[in-house]
């Protein structure tokens, strides 16, 4: 059974690029346009990994990580931040919130796949 990955980004093109990379490797991909949308997508289905942007409207990526970690079903789900943010202070915020990795855009599909394969839940 294919692993289900949720990509959260307010940029449709970024969601599209991530989807292409992951679907090509055999993963199922769900899309959310911000933190709130992502939380609604988590209900009623099993998600094996979350890839999220940081700066988004309605709910930003760091808040999303904190909110996801409060959900019992997703407490151990790996979350990877995929963002243009490269400031160390922001990275620390992500790490403290519970993110597992921080990828600075632009990313190469192969690099993203490497991170996903390393962290995705079995």
């Amino acid at each position, binding site marked *: 059974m294919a692993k289900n990955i949720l990509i959260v980004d307010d*940029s449709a093109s970024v969601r599209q690029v991530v989807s292409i990379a992951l679907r090509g490797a055999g993963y199922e991909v769900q899309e959310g346009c911000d933190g709130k949308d992502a939380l609604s997508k988590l209900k009623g289905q099993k998600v094996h990994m979350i890839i999220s942007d940081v700066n988004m409207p309605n709910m930003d990526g760091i808040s999303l990580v904190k909110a996801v970690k409060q959900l019992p079903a997703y407490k151990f789900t790996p979350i990877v931040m995929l963002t243009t943010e490269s400031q160390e202070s922001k990275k620390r915020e992500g790490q403290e919130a519970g993110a597992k990795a921080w990828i*600075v855009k632009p990313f190469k599909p192969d690099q993203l796949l490497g991170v996903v394969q390393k962290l995705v839940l079995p």
Partner: protein
Amino acid sequence: MPNMSSTTTLSPAGAATPFATGLRGLRPHAWHCTLLGAAGGISTWAASGWNAWAAIGGGVLLAAGVIFDRQRALVERRRQARTAAFVSGTEALGRELLPVWGAHIESSRQQMETAIAELSQRFGGIVDRLDQAMKASSMAAGSSDSASHGLVAVFDRSTQELNAVLESLRKATASNSEMHAEVQNLGSFVTELQQMAAEVASIASQTNLLAINAAIEAAHAGESGRGFSVLAQEVRKLSAMSGETGRRMTDKVNLVGQAIAKARQSAEASAAREIASISVCEGSINGVLSGFHNVTQALVESADVLKRESIGIQSEICEALVQLQFQDRVSQVMSHVRQNIEQVPGELAASREGFERTGDLQPVDAAALLAALQKTYAMAEEHTTHRGGSVSAPASEEITFF
């Protein structure tokens, strides 16, 4: 687009309130020359001992002071009106023009977002279709490792089955050769039978000769040999019958011999035809297999070329997808600039309010705006640009594991 009526706010008419405020601020100074003229006139008049002509001179001084004050007030009013118009126009610039700039930036950002998303989707479609074409081609050609019913597999199975057919034909020919050898052996039996028939005929002839001699001897014996004579006659009959049987045997054996010879000739001809036929079949099968092999090989090579090209194209598209991510970065920069532009009208309005309140020009707080802009930055190159540095396309290699 800004409407034409909005431009009226840039005219001096909009400066009435600040103008009045300005005048209020100027009044204490507006009578300085008049007072000076009055004082000079009274002093002159008094110094002349209240002479009438001196009074006229004093009046002239007073009038000059009044005229000078009026002129100065007029110039000041005009300057204040221009300043107020400038302040009001600048605020109108922030209120009317900057939102339009912001709207244009946002519109461009959204259009770029939509276009890039669609472009990415099309690239994704190309990658998917290439993948499907590659799989279909590999499966049809059977060049993939797991293919069990591709062209290569069909060729291998066809080769095996046709070789089995050839082998079975060769076995049938070998079996015919054995039968032919058996027929050859039958020829030697016929010869033996012919010799045996000849021996039977010879025995019959000798028996007949003995019976003749026995009859002669019986005649010599007279009445006493009569019985023996009858016996000799019967023996002669038997020998004649044996001789006839021997001849018939010879005839039949000859016929059998001829039939066997004919059968042998037919078998030899049939075997020769079979061998020739098998040789032709073998040649045809090898020819067909060779042609099939060439076609299969060409298709496999073609599938390999397609696979290589597809992988190359997919790799190129992946690179293109990396480059397309510039949209996200540009979009963020545009959003940050737009947000900062949206803050400018507030600063300009505060500046106008300060001017109206105090009558003094209030500078726009550029440092606050710059600080607010800097606070929105997410990317290192935004900070670099802010400091006046130049940036190149960022490399995609920064991954941090926690």
